[in-house]
C-alpha cells in the first residue's frame, strides 16, 4: 500500500490533493525509523490522541486499513475497508481531483 500511495502523492503533486493518515503505531522510535525507510512524506494524525481516546474509535473503524475519499467540498465520496485495488483507487482519486480543478461540485 505505501509504495503505491507514495507514487500517487508524487503523481498528484501540485494538484488539489492531500493524503492524510491516521497512524496507529505505538512505538514512536520505531515509527520514526519506518517513516524514513519507507519515505512516507505525507502527514498523519496520531490515532491515540489521549489515554482513552483514539480517532479510529471515534470513526468506528473496524479494520485496517480503512480509507475514506473526501472531495474538495468536504463530502465523503467513497470508502474502502481493506486495501482497494490500485487501479480503482487511482481512478476514483483522479476523478475527484479533476472535478476539483474544474470547480464542479460533483
Amino acid at each position, binding site marked *: *500500500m505505501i509504495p503505491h*500511495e507514495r507514487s*500517487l502523492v508524487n503523481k498528484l503533486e501540485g494538484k*488539489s*490533493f*492531500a*493524503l*492524510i*493518515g*491516521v*497512524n*496507529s*503505531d*505505538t*512505538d514512536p522510535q*520505531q*515509527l520514526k525509523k*519506518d*517513516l524514513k525507510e*519507507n519515505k512516507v512524506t505525507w*502527514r*498523519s*494524525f*496520531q*490515532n491515540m*490522541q489521549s489515554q482513552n481516546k483514539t*480517532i*479510529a474509535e*471515534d*470513526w*468506528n*473503524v*473496524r*479494520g*485496517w*486499513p*480503512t*480509507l*475514506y*475519499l*473526501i*472531495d*474538495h*467540498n*468536504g*463530502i*465523503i*465520496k*467513497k*470508502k*474502502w*475497508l*481493506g*486495501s*482497494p*485495488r490500485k487501479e480503482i483507487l487511482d481512478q476514483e*482519486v483522479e476523478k*475527484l*481531483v479533476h472535478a*476539483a480543478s474544474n470547480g464542479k461540485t460533483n
Partner: protein
Amino acid sequence: MRLFAIGLAACVALGLSAQSGGIRADDKAKQAKTDPVKELATIQSEWSNAQQAFSKAYQEAKTDDERRQVLKDKRPKPDAFADRCLKLAEANPDSPVYMEALAWVLANAGRTPAAKTALPKLKEKLAAITDLSALRKILIGMQPSALMEAAPLVAEKAKKNLDDPQAAPLLIWVASATLYSGNSAVFSKLYNDIVDLIMDRFVERDDLAELADWLAMDDDPAWAEKHLRRLRDKNPSEVVKTHAAYGLAAVLKNKDETSQPEAEKLFESVIASANASKGDLAEKAKKELDEMKVRGIGKPAPEISGSDLDGKAFKLSDYKGKVVLLDFWGFW
C-alpha cells in the same frame, strides 16, 4: 478475488507468526505404543497451554518494552510440537490420526521444516481418495485456510463429479480454504472460479449464508454485488436471503451516492427479518445504518482535530478545497 486480512495488527500483536521463543516442548515423548489419538490430544493441549501462558504474559505486560520482551522470550515455538506431530503421523499411517496430525502441523506450524514434509504427505493421501464422501469426512474439522495448498486437488475431484451430493459441500470447502489467498494470483483465481461455479450450479442451496458473508467483504465489489443480488433473488432459504441482503447492503453503502437509499432499505429489511434477530446480523445492520447517517457516502466528513506525528496540532478541515484521501494505517 479475496478477502483482506482484517485485524492484521491484532495477529501481529499476538505473535501468530512465531519466530523465536523460549518455551520448549516436552522432549520426553516416549515412542512407546501409546494410543495415537491420546498422544495427539496431549500434544495439542500442551501447545494450547503454552499459547495461553504466552498470551497471559503478554496481556500482563505493562509497557511496550515489556511486551517486546514477552514476544521475544515467551512466544511458544511450534517446531518441537510440529516434529512430534509429524513423528506421530509417520508412526500411524493407517490411523485417522495420520491426517489430523499432518493438518495440525500445517495449521499451527506452517513455517517449520516439519510442515514442508507434512504437506506432500497430506496431499498424497487426499489425492488417493476417490470417494467424495470419504474426502469430505476427512476435510471436515480441519482448518481450511491451513490446507490452501490442497484446495486445487479437492476442487478437481469435486468438479469431475458435480452430480455427487458431496460436490457442493466440497466446493464450499475449497472456497473457504482459498478465501485468504493474500497476493497469490493462482489461489485468488481458484477462489473466484469456484464461487462462480457454486453460484452457477448450486445457487439454491441452503448452506450458502457463509458465502454471502465472504462476498460482503470481497475486494472486488462489482463482482461481489453481482453474486449477492443473484443469491438474494434465487435462493429460497430465508437465512441465506437475509445474509445476502446484508452483504449486498454492505457492498452498496461503500459504492457511490446513488446506491445509498438501496443500502439503507436492505439494512432495514435485515432488521425487520425475523430470522436475523436470532443472530447478530440485525444488531450489525442497526450499527451500519447509524454509521451511514454520520459517515456515509454523500455526508460531510466529520472534523478531526489532533496532533500529527511530530506533535503539531492540525485539523482535517485545514485541507478543505482539496481532495483528501484519509487513510487509517500503520506499519505494525
